[in-house]
Protein backbone atom coordinates (compact mmCIF):
# COMPACT_ATOMS: atom_id res chain seq x y z
CA UNK A 1 0.00 0.00 0.00
CA UNK A 2 1.32 3.39 -0.93
CA UNK A 3 1.74 5.92 1.80
CA UNK A 4 -0.99 8.19 0.49
CA UNK A 5 -3.49 5.34 0.36
CA UNK A 6 -2.56 4.39 3.92
CA UNK A 7 -3.19 7.90 5.15
CA UNK A 8 -6.53 8.06 3.40
CA UNK A 9 -7.50 4.84 5.18
CA UNK A 10 -6.29 6.15 8.48
CA UNK A 11 -7.98 9.53 8.46
CA UNK A 12 -11.55 8.23 8.85
CA UNK A 13 -10.36 5.97 11.64
CA UNK A 14 -8.69 8.87 13.42
CA UNK A 15 -11.70 11.08 12.82
CA UNK A 16 -13.75 8.58 14.73
CA UNK A 17 -11.29 7.97 17.52
CA UNK A 18 -9.34 11.16 18.03
CA UNK A 19 -11.89 13.90 18.55
CA UNK A 20 -12.96 12.35 21.81
CA UNK A 21 -9.32 12.22 22.92
CA UNK A 22 -8.09 15.50 21.59
CA UNK A 23 -11.01 17.87 21.88
CA UNK A 24 -13.21 16.78 24.75
CA UNK A 25 -10.65 17.05 27.48
CA UNK A 26 -10.18 20.14 29.62
CA UNK A 27 -7.22 22.27 28.65
CA UNK A 28 -5.45 25.33 30.00
CA UNK A 29 -5.42 28.59 28.04
CA UNK A 30 -2.25 27.52 26.22
CA UNK A 31 -3.78 24.17 25.19
CA UNK A 32 -2.06 21.96 27.77
CA UNK A 33 -4.32 19.17 29.07
CA UNK A 34 -5.67 20.19 32.47
CA UNK A 35 -5.35 17.26 34.87
CA UNK A 36 -6.72 19.13 37.86
CA UNK A 37 -9.53 17.41 39.74
CA UNK A 38 -10.33 14.63 42.19
CA UNK A 39 -9.42 11.15 40.92
CA UNK A 40 -9.18 7.56 42.08
CA UNK A 41 -7.58 4.52 40.47
CA UNK A 42 -9.98 1.92 39.15
CA UNK A 43 -7.88 -1.16 39.74
CA UNK A 44 -7.08 -4.00 42.15
CA UNK A 45 -3.37 -3.23 41.74
CA UNK A 46 -2.99 -2.05 45.34
CA UNK A 47 -3.31 -5.69 46.39
CA UNK A 48 -0.98 -7.04 43.73
CA UNK A 49 0.27 -5.71 40.43
CA UNK A 50 0.17 -9.30 39.09
CA UNK A 51 -2.67 -11.82 38.76
CA UNK A 52 -3.77 -12.78 42.27
CA UNK A 53 -6.47 -14.73 44.03
CA UNK A 54 -8.36 -13.35 46.99
CA UNK A 55 -6.86 -13.48 50.49
CA UNK A 56 -7.95 -12.09 53.82
CA UNK A 57 -8.57 -8.37 53.27
CA UNK A 58 -7.39 -8.69 49.64
CA UNK A 59 -9.63 -8.63 46.61
CA UNK A 60 -8.70 -10.91 43.71
CA UNK A 61 -7.52 -9.17 40.59
CA UNK A 62 -5.92 -9.48 37.21
CA UNK A 63 -2.45 -8.28 36.35
CA UNK A 64 -1.87 -4.66 35.37
CA UNK A 65 1.64 -5.57 34.14
CA UNK A 66 2.14 -5.53 30.38
CA UNK A 67 2.93 -9.14 29.48
CA UNK A 68 1.34 -10.44 32.70
CA UNK A 69 4.18 -10.94 35.16
CA UNK A 70 7.04 -8.90 36.58
CA UNK A 71 10.41 -9.88 35.06
CA UNK A 72 12.27 -10.47 38.34
CA UNK A 73 15.81 -11.71 38.74
CA UNK A 74 15.54 -15.16 40.37
CA UNK A 75 16.78 -13.97 43.78
CA UNK A 76 14.37 -11.07 43.70
CA UNK A 77 11.33 -13.25 42.96
CA UNK A 78 12.28 -15.37 45.96
CA UNK A 79 12.46 -12.23 48.08
CA UNK A 80 9.07 -11.03 46.81
CA UNK A 81 7.53 -14.39 47.68
CA UNK A 82 9.04 -14.25 51.16
CA UNK A 83 7.67 -10.70 51.51
CA UNK A 84 4.23 -11.96 50.55
CA UNK A 85 4.36 -14.89 52.97
CA UNK A 86 5.30 -12.52 55.81
CA UNK A 87 3.28 -9.52 54.68
CA UNK A 88 1.38 -9.06 57.93
CA UNK A 89 4.67 -8.32 59.65
CA UNK A 90 6.71 -6.80 56.81
CA UNK A 91 4.34 -4.68 54.74
CA UNK A 92 5.35 -1.06 55.49
CA UNK A 93 1.76 0.04 54.92
CA UNK A 94 0.66 -2.05 57.91
CA UNK A 95 2.77 0.36 59.97
CA UNK A 96 1.21 3.36 58.19
CA UNK A 97 4.54 4.18 56.51
CA UNK A 98 4.61 6.27 53.34
CA UNK A 99 3.52 4.08 50.41
CA UNK A 100 6.00 5.26 47.76
CA UNK A 101 5.46 5.49 44.01
CA UNK A 102 3.72 3.77 42.23
CA UNK A 103 1.86 2.14 45.15
CA UNK A 104 0.20 5.35 46.32
CA UNK A 105 -1.44 5.84 42.91
CA UNK A 106 -3.35 2.54 43.05
CA UNK A 107 -4.59 2.70 46.64
CA UNK A 108 -8.37 2.71 47.09
CA UNK A 109 -8.52 6.32 48.27
CA UNK A 110 -9.28 9.46 46.25
CA UNK A 111 -6.59 12.01 45.46
CA UNK A 112 -6.60 15.51 44.03
CA UNK A 113 -4.36 16.84 41.28
CA UNK A 114 -3.44 20.53 41.14
CA UNK A 115 -1.72 22.02 38.13
CA UNK A 116 0.31 25.14 37.42
CA UNK A 117 2.91 25.63 34.68
CA UNK A 118 5.73 25.10 37.21
CA UNK A 119 4.31 22.44 39.53
CA UNK A 120 1.86 19.58 39.66
CA UNK A 121 0.82 18.56 43.16
CA UNK A 122 -1.06 15.39 44.03
CA UNK A 123 -2.69 15.35 47.45
CA UNK A 124 -3.99 12.05 48.78
CA UNK A 125 -6.78 11.43 51.26
CA UNK A 126 -4.73 8.60 52.75
CA UNK A 127 -2.79 10.08 55.67
CA UNK A 128 -2.38 13.51 54.04
CA UNK A 129 0.42 12.23 51.83
CA UNK A 130 1.22 14.42 48.86
CA UNK A 131 3.54 14.43 45.87
CA UNK A 132 5.09 17.63 44.55
CA UNK A 133 6.17 17.23 40.92
CA UNK A 134 8.45 19.97 39.65
CA UNK A 135 7.19 20.58 36.11
CA UNK A 136 9.01 23.73 35.03
CA UNK A 137 12.42 22.24 34.26
CA UNK A 138 13.77 22.84 37.78
CA UNK A 139 17.05 21.04 38.52
CA UNK A 140 16.99 18.78 41.57
CA UNK A 141 18.64 20.77 44.38
CA UNK A 142 19.46 18.00 46.85
CA UNK A 143 20.44 14.84 44.97
CA UNK A 144 22.00 11.89 46.73
CA UNK A 145 19.38 11.26 49.40
CA UNK A 146 16.57 8.81 48.88
CA UNK A 147 13.00 9.37 50.03
CA UNK A 148 9.93 7.19 50.56
CA UNK A 149 8.04 9.11 47.86
CA UNK A 150 11.09 9.68 45.65
CA UNK A 151 11.96 12.85 43.75
CA UNK A 152 9.56 13.65 40.89
CA UNK A 153 10.34 15.79 37.83
CA UNK A 154 7.66 16.20 35.15
CA UNK A 155 7.42 17.47 31.58
CA UNK A 156 4.85 17.41 28.80
CA UNK A 157 5.30 15.21 25.72
CA UNK A 158 2.42 16.29 23.50
CA UNK A 159 -0.73 15.66 25.54
CA UNK A 160 0.99 13.27 27.97
CA UNK A 161 2.43 14.42 31.29
CA UNK A 162 5.60 12.41 31.85
CA UNK A 163 7.05 12.18 35.36
CA UNK A 164 10.46 10.67 36.12
CA UNK A 165 10.77 9.47 39.72
CA UNK A 166 14.27 8.86 41.11
CA UNK A 167 15.83 8.57 44.57
CA UNK A 168 13.09 6.33 45.92
CA UNK A 169 14.25 4.35 48.94
CA UNK A 170 14.20 0.56 49.04
CA UNK A 171 11.98 0.32 52.12
CA UNK A 172 8.61 0.82 50.38
CA UNK A 173 6.71 -1.94 48.58
CA UNK A 174 4.90 -1.52 45.27
CA UNK A 175 1.75 -3.34 46.45
CA UNK A 176 0.49 -5.54 49.29
CA UNK A 177 2.02 -8.60 47.64
CA UNK A 178 5.59 -7.64 48.48
CA UNK A 179 6.68 -6.47 45.06
CA UNK A 180 9.68 -4.20 45.50
CA UNK A 181 12.43 -2.23 43.79
CA UNK A 182 15.90 -1.01 44.71
CA UNK A 183 17.19 2.50 45.42
CA UNK A 184 18.44 2.72 41.84
CA UNK A 185 14.96 2.29 40.32
CA UNK A 186 13.89 4.87 37.76
CA UNK A 187 10.11 5.01 37.51
CA UNK A 188 8.67 6.84 34.50
CA UNK A 189 5.00 7.68 34.80
CA UNK A 190 2.76 8.77 31.93
CA UNK A 191 -0.55 10.57 32.54
CA UNK A 192 -2.75 10.79 29.42
CA UNK A 193 -6.34 12.00 29.44
CA UNK A 194 -8.51 9.63 27.43
CA UNK A 195 -11.60 11.73 27.98
CA UNK A 196 -12.67 14.45 30.39
CA UNK A 197 -13.16 11.95 33.23
CA UNK A 198 -10.44 9.36 32.59
CA UNK A 199 -6.66 9.50 32.81
CA UNK A 200 -4.69 6.53 31.50
CA UNK A 201 -1.93 5.99 34.07
CA UNK A 202 1.19 4.11 33.04
CA UNK A 203 4.42 3.55 34.93
CA UNK A 204 7.58 1.91 33.64
CA UNK A 205 9.95 0.53 36.26
CA UNK A 206 13.59 0.38 35.17
CA UNK A 207 15.75 -1.27 37.83
CA UNK A 208 18.45 -3.65 36.50
CA UNK A 209 19.46 -4.66 40.02
CA UNK A 210 16.10 -6.33 40.63
CA UNK A 211 14.58 -7.03 37.19
CA UNK A 212 15.79 -8.55 33.93
CA UNK A 213 14.22 -5.78 31.84
CA UNK A 214 12.07 -2.65 32.26
CA UNK A 215 8.36 -3.36 32.71
CA UNK A 216 5.18 -1.32 32.59
CA UNK A 217 1.92 -1.17 34.51
CA UNK A 218 -1.26 0.57 33.38
CA UNK A 219 -4.72 1.32 34.76
CA UNK A 220 -7.31 4.11 34.54
CA UNK A 221 -7.71 6.98 37.00
CA UNK A 222 -11.36 7.99 37.15
CA UNK A 223 -12.66 11.46 38.04
CA UNK A 224 -14.67 11.48 41.27
CA UNK A 225 -17.78 13.53 40.72
CA UNK A 226 -19.48 12.94 44.08
CA UNK A 227 -17.19 15.15 46.18
CA UNK A 228 -15.76 18.64 45.98
CA UNK A 229 -13.03 18.11 48.54
CA UNK A 230 -11.11 15.21 50.05
CA UNK A 231 -11.61 14.27 53.67
CA UNK A 232 -8.93 12.77 55.93
CA UNK A 233 -7.76 9.32 56.85
CA UNK A 234 -4.86 9.66 59.28
CA UNK A 235 -3.61 6.09 59.36
CA UNK A 236 -1.39 6.09 62.46
CA UNK A 237 -3.70 8.36 64.42
CA UNK A 238 -6.58 5.96 63.78
CA UNK A 239 -4.43 3.00 64.82
CA UNK A 240 -3.33 4.67 68.06
CA UNK A 241 -6.80 5.92 68.93
CA UNK A 242 -8.15 2.42 68.38
CA UNK A 243 -5.49 0.69 70.51
CA UNK A 244 -5.42 3.38 73.21
CA UNK A 245 -1.87 4.61 72.60
CA UNK A 246 -3.25 8.08 71.85
CA UNK A 247 -5.83 8.92 74.47
CA UNK A 248 -9.07 10.74 73.92
CA UNK A 249 -9.47 14.20 75.54
CA UNK A 250 -13.16 14.43 76.26
CA UNK A 251 -13.30 18.13 77.12
CA UNK A 252 -11.51 19.31 73.95
CA UNK A 253 -12.28 16.82 71.18
CA UNK A 254 -15.49 16.95 69.16
CA UNK A 255 -18.26 17.05 70.37
CA UNK A 256 -17.24 18.51 73.74
CA UNK A 257 -19.55 21.28 74.95
CA UNK A 258 -18.66 24.57 76.63
CA UNK A 259 -17.90 23.95 80.34
CA UNK A 260 -20.39 25.46 82.77
CA UNK A 261 -17.55 27.01 84.79
CA UNK A 262 -16.41 29.07 81.79
CA UNK A 263 -16.43 32.86 81.76
CA UNK A 264 -18.91 33.68 78.95
CA UNK A 265 -17.17 34.01 75.59
CA UNK A 266 -17.10 37.60 74.36
CA UNK A 267 -17.10 37.10 70.60
CA UNK A 268 -17.08 40.84 69.94
CA UNK A 269 -13.92 41.52 71.95
CA UNK A 270 -10.78 42.22 70.02
CA UNK A 271 -8.85 45.25 68.98
CA UNK A 272 -9.65 46.57 65.54
CA UNK A 273 -6.04 46.25 64.44
CA UNK A 274 -5.13 47.59 61.03
CA UNK A 275 -3.54 45.10 58.64
CA UNK A 276 0.08 45.72 57.66
CA UNK A 277 0.30 47.51 54.31
CA UNK A 278 0.97 45.57 51.14
CA UNK A 279 3.88 47.19 49.30
CA UNK A 280 3.61 47.93 45.59
CA UNK A 281 6.56 45.76 44.59
CA UNK A 282 5.15 42.34 45.51
CA UNK A 283 5.32 39.53 42.94
CA UNK A 284 2.09 39.10 41.00
CA UNK A 285 0.56 36.60 38.61
CA UNK A 286 -0.38 37.68 35.07
CA UNK A 287 -3.92 38.47 36.21
CA UNK A 288 -2.62 40.81 38.92
CA UNK A 289 -3.28 38.46 41.85
CA UNK A 290 -0.46 38.48 44.41
CA UNK A 291 1.94 35.59 43.72
CA UNK A 292 2.55 33.73 46.97
CA UNK A 293 4.18 30.74 45.27
CA UNK A 294 7.25 29.73 47.20
CA UNK A 295 8.88 28.01 50.16
CA UNK A 296 8.38 29.51 53.61
CA UNK A 297 9.38 28.90 57.19
CA UNK A 298 8.84 30.80 60.38
CA UNK A 299 11.63 28.85 61.98
CA UNK A 300 9.69 27.39 64.85
CA UNK A 301 9.90 30.09 67.52
CA UNK A 302 6.12 30.23 68.05
CA UNK A 303 6.21 26.45 68.33
CA UNK A 304 7.83 27.00 71.73
CA UNK A 305 5.21 29.42 72.97
CA UNK A 306 2.84 32.08 71.70
CA UNK A 307 3.04 34.42 74.69
CA UNK A 308 5.88 36.71 75.71
CA UNK A 309 8.43 34.85 77.77
CA UNK A 310 11.53 35.98 79.64
CA UNK A 311 12.48 33.51 82.32
CA UNK A 312 11.29 30.17 81.07
CA UNK A 313 14.05 27.59 81.51
CA UNK A 314 15.37 26.09 78.27
CA UNK A 315 13.46 28.47 76.02
CA UNK A 316 14.94 31.56 74.37
CA UNK A 317 13.32 34.80 75.51
CA UNK A 318 10.77 35.99 73.01
CA UNK A 319 8.36 38.86 72.69
CA UNK A 320 5.58 36.49 71.76
CA UNK A 321 3.38 36.58 68.70
CA UNK A 322 0.08 37.63 70.31
CA UNK A 323 -0.93 41.09 69.09
CA UNK A 324 -4.45 40.95 70.55
CA UNK A 325 -5.09 41.14 73.48
CA UNK A 326 -2.49 43.89 73.43
CA UNK A 327 -0.80 42.65 76.63
CA UNK A 328 0.26 39.57 74.67
CA UNK A 329 -1.37 37.20 77.16
CA UNK A 330 -3.72 34.52 75.84
CA UNK A 331 -7.28 34.99 77.20
CA UNK A 332 -7.46 31.49 78.64
CA UNK A 333 -10.29 30.10 80.65
CA UNK A 334 -8.81 29.32 84.07
CA UNK A 335 -8.95 25.54 83.66
CA UNK A 336 -7.45 25.74 80.16
CA UNK A 337 -4.42 27.70 81.40
CA UNK A 338 -3.94 25.09 84.12
CA UNK A 339 -4.05 22.42 81.42
CA UNK A 340 -1.46 24.31 79.36
CA UNK A 341 0.86 24.65 82.37
CA UNK A 342 0.56 20.95 83.14
CA UNK A 343 1.49 20.13 79.54
CA UNK A 344 4.90 21.66 80.22
CA UNK A 345 5.64 18.84 82.65
CA UNK A 346 7.91 16.18 81.16
CA UNK A 347 5.34 13.44 81.67
CA UNK A 348 2.89 15.27 79.39
CA UNK A 349 5.29 15.47 76.45
CA UNK A 350 3.92 12.15 75.20
CA UNK A 351 0.49 13.73 74.71
CA UNK A 352 1.61 16.22 72.06
CA UNK A 353 0.16 14.85 68.80
CA UNK A 354 3.21 15.86 66.79
CA UNK A 355 5.39 13.69 69.04
CA UNK A 356 3.36 10.82 67.56
CA UNK A 357 4.02 12.26 64.09
CA UNK A 358 0.39 13.26 63.66
CA UNK A 359 -0.32 16.42 61.69
CA UNK A 360 0.14 19.77 63.41
CA UNK A 361 -3.25 21.34 62.64
CA UNK A 362 -3.96 25.02 62.13
CA UNK A 363 -2.42 27.48 62.84
CA UNK A 364 0.51 25.38 64.20
CA UNK A 365 1.44 23.98 60.78
CA UNK A 366 2.67 27.49 59.92
CA UNK A 367 5.26 27.55 62.70
CA UNK A 368 6.54 24.05 63.19
CA UNK A 369 10.24 24.17 62.37
CA UNK A 370 9.79 22.66 58.91
CA UNK A 371 9.11 24.67 55.77
CA UNK A 372 6.04 24.60 53.56
CA UNK A 373 5.34 25.35 49.92
CA UNK A 374 2.47 27.48 48.66
CA UNK A 375 1.02 26.88 45.18
CA UNK A 376 -1.81 28.80 43.52
CA UNK A 377 -3.47 26.55 40.95
CA UNK A 378 -6.77 27.72 39.46
CA UNK A 379 -9.45 27.98 42.15
CA UNK A 380 -7.26 26.98 45.10
CA UNK A 381 -4.41 27.93 47.36
CA UNK A 382 -2.53 24.74 48.23
CA UNK A 383 -0.12 24.58 51.15
CA UNK A 384 2.21 21.58 51.20
CA UNK A 385 3.88 21.06 54.58
CA UNK A 386 7.26 19.34 54.51
CA UNK A 387 6.23 17.38 57.56
CA UNK A 388 3.92 15.48 55.23
CA UNK A 389 0.55 17.11 55.52
CA UNK A 390 -1.25 19.63 53.38
CA UNK A 391 -4.09 22.11 53.36
CA UNK A 392 -6.26 22.83 50.35
CA UNK A 393 -7.87 26.28 50.60
CA UNK A 394 -10.88 26.41 48.30
CA UNK A 395 -11.15 29.87 46.73
CA UNK A 396 -14.67 29.33 45.29
CA UNK A 397 -16.69 27.28 47.79
CA UNK A 398 -18.52 29.48 50.30
CA UNK A 399 -20.03 26.97 52.74
CA UNK A 400 -18.14 24.84 55.22
CA UNK A 401 -18.61 21.11 55.57
CA UNK A 402 -21.50 19.89 57.73
CA UNK A 403 -20.80 20.41 61.41
CA UNK A 404 -20.55 16.68 62.05
CA UNK A 405 -17.49 16.27 59.82
CA UNK A 406 -14.35 17.02 61.82
CA UNK A 407 -10.77 17.12 60.57
CA UNK A 408 -7.26 17.60 61.94
CA UNK A 409 -6.60 20.35 59.37
CA UNK A 410 -10.15 21.76 59.30
CA UNK A 411 -12.07 23.02 56.29
CA UNK A 412 -10.58 26.16 54.74
CA UNK A 413 -12.32 28.65 52.42
CA UNK A 414 -10.31 31.52 50.94
CA UNK A 415 -10.99 34.82 49.23
CA UNK A 416 -9.09 37.99 48.35
CA UNK A 417 -9.72 41.27 50.10
CA UNK A 418 -7.67 43.59 47.92
CA UNK A 419 -4.19 42.04 47.90
CA UNK A 420 -4.71 40.12 51.16
CA UNK A 421 -5.63 36.45 51.12
CA UNK A 422 -8.25 35.82 53.80
CA UNK A 423 -8.91 32.24 54.94
CA UNK A 424 -11.89 31.21 57.08
CA UNK A 425 -11.64 27.75 58.59
CA UNK A 426 -13.79 25.54 60.80
CA UNK A 427 -14.65 21.83 61.28
CA UNK A 428 -11.63 21.09 63.49
CA UNK A 429 -11.56 17.92 65.59
CA UNK A 430 -9.81 19.49 68.60
CA UNK A 431 -7.01 16.90 68.72
CA UNK A 432 -4.12 19.27 67.92
CA UNK A 433 -1.98 21.34 70.28
CA UNK A 434 -1.20 24.95 69.39
CA UNK A 435 2.49 24.31 69.94
CA UNK A 436 5.09 22.23 71.74
CA UNK A 437 4.55 24.19 74.96
CA UNK A 438 1.01 22.89 75.08
CA UNK A 439 -1.11 25.94 74.27
CA UNK A 440 -4.65 24.66 74.07
CA UNK A 441 -7.05 24.29 71.15
CA UNK A 442 -10.45 22.65 70.99
CA UNK A 443 -12.80 21.46 68.25
CA UNK A 444 -14.82 24.65 68.72
CA UNK A 445 -12.12 26.86 67.28
CA UNK A 446 -12.72 28.79 64.09
CA UNK A 447 -9.79 30.62 62.57
CA UNK A 448 -9.65 33.69 60.34
CA UNK A 449 -6.23 33.94 58.74
CA UNK A 450 -4.59 36.60 56.63
CA UNK A 451 -1.68 36.11 54.21
CA UNK A 452 -0.49 39.70 53.76
CA UNK A 453 1.99 39.80 50.83
CA UNK A 454 5.35 41.50 51.28
CA UNK A 455 8.24 41.89 48.84
CA UNK A 456 10.21 39.01 50.39
CA UNK A 457 7.44 36.83 51.81
CA UNK A 458 4.24 37.56 53.65
CA UNK A 459 2.97 38.46 57.09
CA UNK A 460 0.86 35.73 58.67
CA UNK A 461 -1.99 36.75 60.94
CA UNK A 462 -4.50 34.41 62.54
CA UNK A 463 -7.47 35.29 64.74
CA UNK A 464 -8.57 32.25 66.74
CA UNK A 465 -12.07 32.07 68.22
CA UNK A 466 -12.40 29.13 70.60
CA UNK A 467 -15.30 29.44 73.05
CA UNK A 468 -14.30 26.29 74.93
CA UNK A 469 -10.71 27.12 75.91
CA UNK A 470 -10.70 30.94 75.80
CA UNK A 471 -12.85 33.84 76.96
CA UNK A 472 -12.54 35.93 73.78
CA UNK A 473 -10.93 35.78 70.32
CA UNK A 474 -7.18 36.36 70.12
CA UNK A 475 -4.78 37.14 67.30
CA UNK A 476 -1.23 36.10 66.46
CA UNK A 477 0.98 37.64 63.83
CA UNK A 478 4.40 36.72 62.51
CA UNK A 479 6.60 37.27 59.46
CA UNK A 480 6.96 34.46 56.93
CA UNK A 481 10.18 34.96 54.96
CA UNK A 482 10.32 33.34 51.52
CA UNK A 483 13.21 30.84 51.31
CA UNK A 484 15.35 29.58 48.48
CA UNK A 485 15.13 25.86 48.02
CA UNK A 486 12.87 22.93 47.39
CA UNK A 487 10.65 20.86 49.64
CA UNK A 488 12.19 17.72 51.05
CA UNK A 489 10.34 14.89 52.76
CA UNK A 490 9.88 14.39 56.48
CA UNK A 491 9.06 10.74 56.99
CA UNK A 492 8.42 11.27 60.69
CA UNK A 493 6.70 8.09 61.80
CA UNK A 494 9.12 5.89 59.87
CA UNK A 495 12.13 6.88 62.00
CA UNK A 496 10.50 8.17 65.17
CA UNK A 497 12.85 7.00 67.91
CA UNK A 498 11.53 9.48 70.46
CA UNK A 499 8.05 8.32 71.30
CA UNK A 500 9.10 5.31 73.36
CA UNK A 501 11.28 7.59 75.52
CA UNK A 502 8.35 9.94 76.06
CA UNK A 503 6.10 7.00 76.91
CA UNK A 504 8.66 5.75 79.46
CA UNK A 505 8.63 9.12 81.20
CA UNK A 506 4.82 9.23 81.26
CA UNK A 507 4.50 5.63 82.45
CA UNK A 508 7.04 6.18 85.21
CA UNK A 509 5.04 9.20 86.38
CA UNK A 510 1.81 7.23 86.33
CA UNK A 511 3.43 4.38 88.25
CA UNK A 512 4.61 6.85 90.91
CA UNK A 513 1.14 8.33 91.16
CA UNK A 514 -0.49 4.95 91.62
CA UNK A 515 2.09 3.97 94.28
CA UNK A 516 1.32 7.16 96.18
CA UNK A 517 -2.33 6.26 96.13
Amino acid at each position, binding site marked *: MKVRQFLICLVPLLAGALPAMAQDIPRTADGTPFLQGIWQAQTRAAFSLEDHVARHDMQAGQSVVAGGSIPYQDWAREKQQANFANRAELDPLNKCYLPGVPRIMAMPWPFQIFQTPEHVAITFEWTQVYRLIYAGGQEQMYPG*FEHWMGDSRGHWEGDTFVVVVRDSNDRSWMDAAGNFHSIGAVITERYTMEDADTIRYEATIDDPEVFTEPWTISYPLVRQTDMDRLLEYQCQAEVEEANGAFERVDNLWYPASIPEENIPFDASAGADLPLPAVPADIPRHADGTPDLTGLYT*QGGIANYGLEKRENLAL*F*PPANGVIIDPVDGVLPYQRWARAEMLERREPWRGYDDP*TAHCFVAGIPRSHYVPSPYMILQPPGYTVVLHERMSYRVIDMNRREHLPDSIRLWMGDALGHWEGDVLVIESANYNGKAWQNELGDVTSHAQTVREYYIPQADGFVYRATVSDPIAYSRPWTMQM*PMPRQDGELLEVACLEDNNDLEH*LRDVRDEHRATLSEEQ
Partner: protein
Amino acid sequence: MKLQGIARLLLLSCIFYPVSGFSHHSFSAEFDIEQPIALTGKVTRMQWSNPHGWIYIDVENDDGSVTNWALETSAANNLIRRGWKREDLPAGTTIVVEGFRARNGTPTANIRGIQLEDGRRLFSGNAEELRN
Protein backbone atom coordinates in the same frame (compact mmCIF):
# COMPACT_ATOMS: atom_id res chain seq x y z
CA MET B 1 11.81 44.24 61.96
CA LYS B 2 12.85 43.07 58.55
CA LEU B 3 12.25 39.48 57.65
CA GLN B 4 15.93 38.76 57.18
CA GLY B 5 16.63 40.04 60.68
CA ILE B 6 14.08 37.61 62.04
CA ALA B 7 15.72 34.77 60.14
CA ARG B 8 19.11 35.60 61.68
CA LEU B 9 17.59 35.76 65.14
CA LEU B 10 16.05 32.34 64.62
CA LEU B 11 19.38 30.91 63.55
CA LEU B 12 21.14 32.28 66.61
CA SER B 13 18.52 30.94 68.97
CA CYS B 14 18.86 27.53 67.34
CA ILE B 15 22.53 27.48 68.26
CA PHE B 16 22.26 28.58 71.88
CA TYR B 17 19.06 27.09 73.21
CA PRO B 18 18.53 23.39 73.53
CA VAL B 19 14.84 23.47 72.73
CA SER B 20 15.09 25.41 69.53
CA GLY B 21 15.68 23.40 66.44
CA PHE B 22 13.51 20.76 68.02
CA SER B 23 10.88 19.77 65.71
CA HIS B 24 8.24 17.43 66.87
CA HIS B 25 8.38 16.75 70.58
CA SER B 26 9.13 18.50 73.83
CA PHE B 27 12.85 18.58 74.61
CA SER B 28 12.35 18.54 78.36
CA ALA B 29 9.95 15.61 78.19
CA GLU B 30 12.62 13.34 76.74
CA PHE B 31 15.94 14.81 77.86
CA ASP B 32 17.12 16.11 81.22
CA ILE B 33 18.96 19.42 81.30
CA GLU B 34 20.19 18.42 84.77
CA GLN B 35 22.18 15.60 83.16
CA PRO B 36 24.69 17.20 80.77
CA ILE B 37 27.03 14.68 79.22
CA ALA B 38 30.24 14.67 77.18
CA LEU B 39 31.17 11.63 75.13
CA THR B 40 34.01 10.58 72.84
CA GLY B 41 33.50 7.62 70.56
CA LYS B 42 33.71 6.08 67.12
CA VAL B 43 30.80 6.47 64.74
CA THR B 44 29.10 3.17 63.93
CA ARG B 45 26.24 4.59 61.87
CA MET B 46 24.47 7.81 60.97
CA GLN B 47 20.78 7.74 60.26
CA TRP B 48 19.79 10.61 57.95
CA SER B 49 16.24 10.81 59.22
CA ASN B 50 13.57 13.36 60.11
CA PRO B 51 12.45 15.14 62.16
CA HIS B 52 15.69 14.13 63.88
CA GLY B 53 18.85 12.54 62.61
CA TRP B 54 20.64 9.99 64.78
CA ILE B 55 24.33 9.30 65.14
CA TYR B 56 25.36 6.05 66.82
CA ILE B 57 28.79 5.88 68.45
CA ASP B 58 30.70 3.24 70.38
CA VAL B 59 31.98 4.67 73.65
CA GLU B 60 34.51 2.79 75.79
CA ASN B 61 33.53 2.68 79.46
CA ASP B 62 35.92 2.85 82.41
CA ASP B 63 35.77 -0.94 82.85
CA GLY B 64 36.76 -1.49 79.22
CA SER B 65 33.31 -2.49 78.01
CA VAL B 66 31.76 -0.63 75.08
CA THR B 67 28.33 1.03 74.95
CA ASN B 68 26.65 2.05 71.72
CA TRP B 69 25.10 5.48 72.31
CA ALA B 70 22.25 6.93 70.26
CA LEU B 71 22.74 10.64 69.73
CA GLU B 72 19.87 12.76 68.49
CA THR B 73 20.67 15.64 66.13
CA SER B 74 18.49 18.15 64.34
CA ALA B 75 16.55 17.11 61.25
CA ALA B 76 18.47 15.54 58.39
CA ASN B 77 16.73 18.01 56.09
CA ASN B 78 18.43 20.89 57.92
CA LEU B 79 21.81 19.29 57.29
CA ILE B 80 20.97 18.49 53.66
CA ARG B 81 19.94 22.10 53.02
CA ARG B 82 23.29 23.26 54.38
CA GLY B 83 25.11 21.06 51.92
CA TRP B 84 26.04 18.07 54.06
CA LYS B 85 26.43 14.71 52.32
CA ARG B 86 26.25 11.14 53.50
CA GLU B 87 30.01 10.77 53.08
CA ASP B 88 30.75 13.55 55.58
CA LEU B 89 30.49 11.29 58.62
CA PRO B 90 31.83 7.84 57.70
CA ALA B 91 31.75 4.95 60.16
CA GLY B 92 34.92 4.79 62.23
CA THR B 93 35.29 8.56 62.60
CA THR B 94 36.05 9.58 66.19
CA ILE B 95 33.86 12.42 67.39
CA VAL B 96 33.51 14.40 70.62
CA VAL B 97 29.99 15.44 71.58
CA GLU B 98 28.23 17.40 74.29
CA GLY B 99 24.58 17.13 75.13
CA PHE B 100 21.92 16.02 77.56
CA ARG B 101 20.98 12.49 78.63
CA ALA B 102 17.58 10.94 78.12
CA ARG B 103 15.41 10.79 81.20
CA ASN B 104 14.64 7.10 80.83
CA GLY B 105 18.24 6.07 81.53
CA THR B 106 18.97 4.47 78.14
CA PRO B 107 22.27 5.36 76.44
CA THR B 108 20.60 8.14 74.51
CA ALA B 109 21.41 11.83 74.38
CA ASN B 110 20.44 14.94 72.51
CA ILE B 111 23.63 16.57 71.27
CA ARG B 112 24.33 20.21 70.60
CA GLY B 113 27.92 20.21 69.42
CA ILE B 114 29.90 17.68 67.40
CA GLN B 115 33.67 17.98 67.02
CA LEU B 116 36.19 15.94 65.15
CA GLU B 117 39.32 15.04 67.10
CA ASP B 118 41.24 17.91 65.50
CA GLY B 119 38.69 20.36 66.90
CA ARG B 120 36.81 21.12 63.71
CA ARG B 121 33.09 21.37 64.35
CA LEU B 122 30.74 19.20 62.35
CA PHE B 123 27.24 20.06 61.16
CA SER B 124 27.40 23.59 62.46
CA GLY B 125 27.70 25.99 59.59
CA ASN B 126 28.46 25.32 56.01
CA ALA B 127 29.57 21.95 54.70
CA GLU B 128 32.03 23.40 52.22
CA GLU B 129 34.01 25.13 54.98
CA LEU B 130 34.82 21.84 56.66
CA ARG B 131 35.76 20.00 53.49
CA ASN B 132 38.18 22.76 52.37
